[in-house]
C-alpha cells in the first residue's frame, strides 16, 4: 500500500491511497467446491484469518440453509476463536506496528535493527516511562503469541485456523479445554487491564494534540459481529484480577451492534443492500462499477489511465465510511450498550476529552484498547455458557444452486463475503475487506476514501519527518504494509515514507 500526499505551504492538499498488490482471490475461487472458500479466503490475511473464516462460514451457512440450525456451542466457539484473534491483532497493532512512532526504542535499547532507521524529532516520553513502554513492547510479543495459543485450543492452529467451518466448529468443548482456555484468557485480560489500556492513556496524555487531527470522513459504519445465543444467567467464576467479567444479561444478538453513525451520534440502521463498489480509479474494468457485491465482478484492467489502486471503492448509499474499532465502539455507545459506555466515559474522563475527540488518531487507538477489554471480558462469559460434550456442529450438504452473504467484524473493521453457487460449484465470490473501505481510492463521484480524507488538510511540521501522516495512516491499522509519498504542489517528490 502506498499513500501519495501533495503538500503545499506545509498543508496536505490532496492524497492518493493505493493498493499495490493484486492476487485475484475472487477469480481463483470461481468453479471450486464452495466449502473450500472457507479455507482459501483465510489466506487473504495472515493477521486476521479467523475473520475471513467467520465471514465465509456465515456466507456458507446462509447458502446451505444452516443459519437457524447452528447449535449454541457453535456460535460460542466461533466467538471465542474470533475474539482470541481480536486480542492478538489489537495488541500486535498497538505495540509492534504503532508504538514505535511514539516510543523512543532507540533511547532505551540503542541503535539496533529493527528499531532503526526511523524518524527523528518527536518522541515525547522519556526516562523511566519510556523504558517501561519498551519493556511492554517485548512483553506484548509474548502476550500476542499466547493469544494465538489460546485460539488454537478450539481453532486447531494459527495463522489459518481450521476449527470454524460451515455448520459450526469441528472441535468439541470439553471441561479441560474450557479451563485451559479460561486461565490463558485471564493472563491476557490482566495485560489488557493493567498494561495495554494504561499505556494508551500514557501515550494519549503525551500526544494530546492527536485527539485533534486525522478526523477524516466522520461517518462510521459497523456491520455488527459476534453472533451469540440467548444467554442463561450463570454465576461467573472469580478471577485473579477480581473482575467477574461481562456480567449483564443479554438475550442473544451480537456483541457489536450494527449502525451507520456520524458526528450527530444518531445511529442509522444498516442494510447490506446499500453497499456498492466503484472502480473508476481502480485497475478494474468500468463495467463492474457501482454494483452491490452480491452482483459484483472482478476484472483487472491495468491499462486504465485514471486508476491508481488495486483496491475498489466501497461506499454506503454512495457515501464514504470509516470502519474499525472506533466505528464499533461508537455504534455500541450511541445504542447505549452499558459496558461500552462505562469504558469509553472512563477513558475520556482520564484524558479530559469529550466524545467528539474520538474522531481522531488517538480516538482510534483508544477505541481499539477499550474494545480489547470489552471482547476479553465477554469471552469469560461465553466460556461459561459452553455445554461440554454437546455438539458444536450440524451436518450439511452443498445445494445445487444457492446464494449467501456473510457479514461480520474483523479486528480492523467490518468484513463481508458474498457468493453464488451453481451446479454445486462457486459461480461468483466477492469479498470486501475493511481496508478496502478505509484505504479506498476516489470513487466515481470523485469523493476521496476515508484515509485520504483523514490526511487532506493536515499540517506537516517537518517535511523530512512527517510524523503526522504516518501516525494518521497507522491509526487505521491498514492490513497492508504501506508507504507514504510526499509530493510538492508541482508534483516533485519530497520523499517516501513507509507505514505499516
Amino acid at each position, binding site marked *: 500500500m502506498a499513500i501519495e500526499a501533495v503538500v503545499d505551504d506545509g498543508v496536505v492538499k490532496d492524497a492518493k491511497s493505493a493498493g499495490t498488490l*493484486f492476487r485475484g482471490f475472487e477469480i481463483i475461487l470461481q468453479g471450486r467446491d464452495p466449502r473450500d472458500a472457507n*479455507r482459501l479466503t483465510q489466506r487473504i490475511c495472515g*493477521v486476521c484469518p479467523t475473520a475471513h473464516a467467520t465471514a465465509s462460514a456465515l456466507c456458507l451457512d446462509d447458502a446451505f440453509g444452516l443459519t437457524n440450525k447452528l447449535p449454541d456451542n457453535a456460535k460460542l466457539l466461533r466467538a471465542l476463536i474470533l475474539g482470541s484473534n481480536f486480542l492478538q491483532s489489537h495488541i500486535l497493532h498497538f505495540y509492534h506496528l504503532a508504538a514505535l512512532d511514539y516510543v523512543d526504542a532507540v533511547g532505551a535499547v540503542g541503535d539496533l*535493527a529493527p528499531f532503526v532507521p526511523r524518524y527523528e524529532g518527536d518522541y515525547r516520553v522519556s526516562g523511566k516511562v519510556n523504558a517501561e513502554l519498551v519493556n511492554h513492547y517485548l512483553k506484548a*510479543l509474548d502476550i500476542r503469541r499466547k493469544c494465538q*495459543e489460546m485460539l488454537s485450543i478450539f481453532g*486447531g492452529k494459527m*495463522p489459518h485456523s481450521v476449527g470454524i*467451518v460451515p455448520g459450526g466448529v469441528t472441535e468439541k468443548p470439553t471441561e479441560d479445554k474450557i479451563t485451559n482456555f479460561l486461565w490463558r484468557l485471564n493472563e491476557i485480560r490482566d495485560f489488557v487491564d493493567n498494561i495495554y489500556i494504561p499505556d494508551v492513556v500514557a501515550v494519549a496524555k503525551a500526544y494530546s494534540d492527536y485527539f485533534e487531527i486525522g478526523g477524516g470522513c466522520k461517518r462510521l459504519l459497523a456491520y455488527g459481529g459476534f453472533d451469540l445465543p440467548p444467554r442463561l444467567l450463570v454465576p461467573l467464576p472469580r478471577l485473579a484480577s477480581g473482575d467477574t467479567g461481562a456480567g449483564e444479561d443479554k438475550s442473544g444478538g451480537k456483541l457489536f451492534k450494527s449502525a451507520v453513525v456520524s458526528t450527530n451520534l444518531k445511529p442509522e440502521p444498516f442494510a447490506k443492500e446499500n453497499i456498492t463498489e466503484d472502480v473508476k480509479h481502480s485497475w478494474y474494468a468500468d463495467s463492474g462499477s457501482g454494483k452491490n457485491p452480491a452482483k459484483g465482478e472482478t476484472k483487472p484492467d*491495468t491499462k486504465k489511465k485514471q486508476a491508481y489502486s488495486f483496491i475498489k471503492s466501497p461506499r454506503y448509499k454512495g457515501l464514504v465510511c470509516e470502519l474499525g474499532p472506533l466505528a464499533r465502539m461508537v455504534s455500541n455507545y450511541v445504542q447505549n450498550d452499558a459496558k461500552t459506555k462505562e469504558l469509553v466515559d472512563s477513558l475520556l474522563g482520564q484524558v479530559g476529552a469529550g466524545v467528539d475527540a474520538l474522531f481522531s488518531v488517538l480516538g482510534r487507538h483508544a477505541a481499539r484498547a477499550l474494545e480489547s477489554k470489552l471482547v476479553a471480558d465477554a469471552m469469560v462469559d461465553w466460556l461459561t455458557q459452553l455445554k461440554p460434550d454437546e455438539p458444536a456442529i450440524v451436518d450439511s450438504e452443498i445445494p445445487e444452486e444457492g446464494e449467501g452473504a456473510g457479514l461480520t467484524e474483523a479486528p480492523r473493521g467490518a468484513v463481508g463475503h458474498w457468493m453464488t453457487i451453481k451446479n454445486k460449484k462457486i459461480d461468483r465470490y466477492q469479498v470486501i475487506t475493511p481496508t478496502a473501505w478505509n484505504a479506498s481510492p476516489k470513487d466515481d463521484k470523485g469523493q476521496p476514501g476515508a484515509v485520504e480524507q483523514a490526511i487532506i488538510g493536515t499540517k506537516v511540521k517537518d517535511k523530512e519527518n512527517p510524523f503526522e501522516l504516518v501516525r494518521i495512516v497507522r491509526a487505521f491499522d491498514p492490513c497492508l504494509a504501506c508507504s507514504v509519498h510526499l509530493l510538492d504542489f508541482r508534483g516533485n517528490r519530497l520523499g517516501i515514507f513507509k507505514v505499516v
Partner: protein
Amino acid sequence: MGTKVYPVIWLQGAGCTGCSVSVLNAVSPKIQNLLLDELVPGHQLNLLFHATIMAGQGEPVIEVLKDTEKNRKGGYILVVEGAIPTAEGGIYGSIGEKDGKHLTILESVQDLGRNALLTIAVGTCATFGGIPAAKPNPTGCKGVKEVFAENGIGTPVVNLPGCPLHPEWFTGTVSIILFSGADALDLDDLARPKLFYGKLIHENCPRRADFDKGKFAKKLGDEGCLYELGCKGHYTYADCSLRQWNNGVSWCVKAGSPCIGCVEPTFPDGTSPMYEKVTFEELTWSQK
C-alpha cells in the same frame, strides 16, 4: 571472540503476511531471541529489512535494501515470503518506489537474490506459488526457485513450504545454517530439509490407529480417521502430527479438521476439493 552477524533481508511478495505472523509465534527461541540475541553461541541474525515489523519509514528503509545489495554482496541471507507475480512485467505487485517508478517484487527479488549468500523461501507461495498461483493464476505467480532458474540466478534456495510454515521449520533451518553452515542442510529434491519434510503426516497421525482399524469419521466432528472427509495426510510430507502447532497446543487433525496438504507443491489445485476423499491413485502415488 566476536559474534558472527548474518544480515537478513525479509521480502514480502504476493502473500498474506501469515508466515511472518507464524514466525512471531516461535517459542524456543522466541522472536525476541531471533531479533536481539546470539541465536547459537557466537552467531546472530540481524534483521535489516522487514516491511511489517521494522520501525523505519521512507527513503532510509529503501536505502537499506540498496546498501545491503551493493555493500554486502554474498554476505546476507534473503528470506522471501509470498509468490512472485510475473504477468505484465510484474505489475501486480510492488513493494515501493525506486527512481520514481514502481519497484516490483519481480525486480527486487532478482536484484537481492543475485547477490545473496543464500535464499530461504518461506511458505508455499514463495516456494511453489501457492494460492496466488492457483488456477487460473491471474497474475502469473511463481515460486522463487522458478524465477531464479528463468533468470540465470545461481544463488542456492532452501524451500520451507507450509500455509503458513511452522515457526520451528524456520528457526530450525536457521540453526543448522548458523551451527554447521548451509552445506549441512540435508535437502530433498524439492530443496526442502528432510528433517522437517521427510515423513508423511499419516505415518505419525494420532488417528492412525483408527485408520488401521477401519474406524472412519462420517461427518465433521466425528471420532475416527478423517480419510473419508478428505484428509490429505496420506500423501502430505510434514511433521505436524509430531511437532503440533502453537507451542504444542493443537494442529489441524487433532482439532477434527482434515489435513489440506498445505505444504505440498501442488497446493491448492492438486489437493482440492479439500473435503473430498483422496483417490486410490493419489493414495498410492509417492513423490519420493
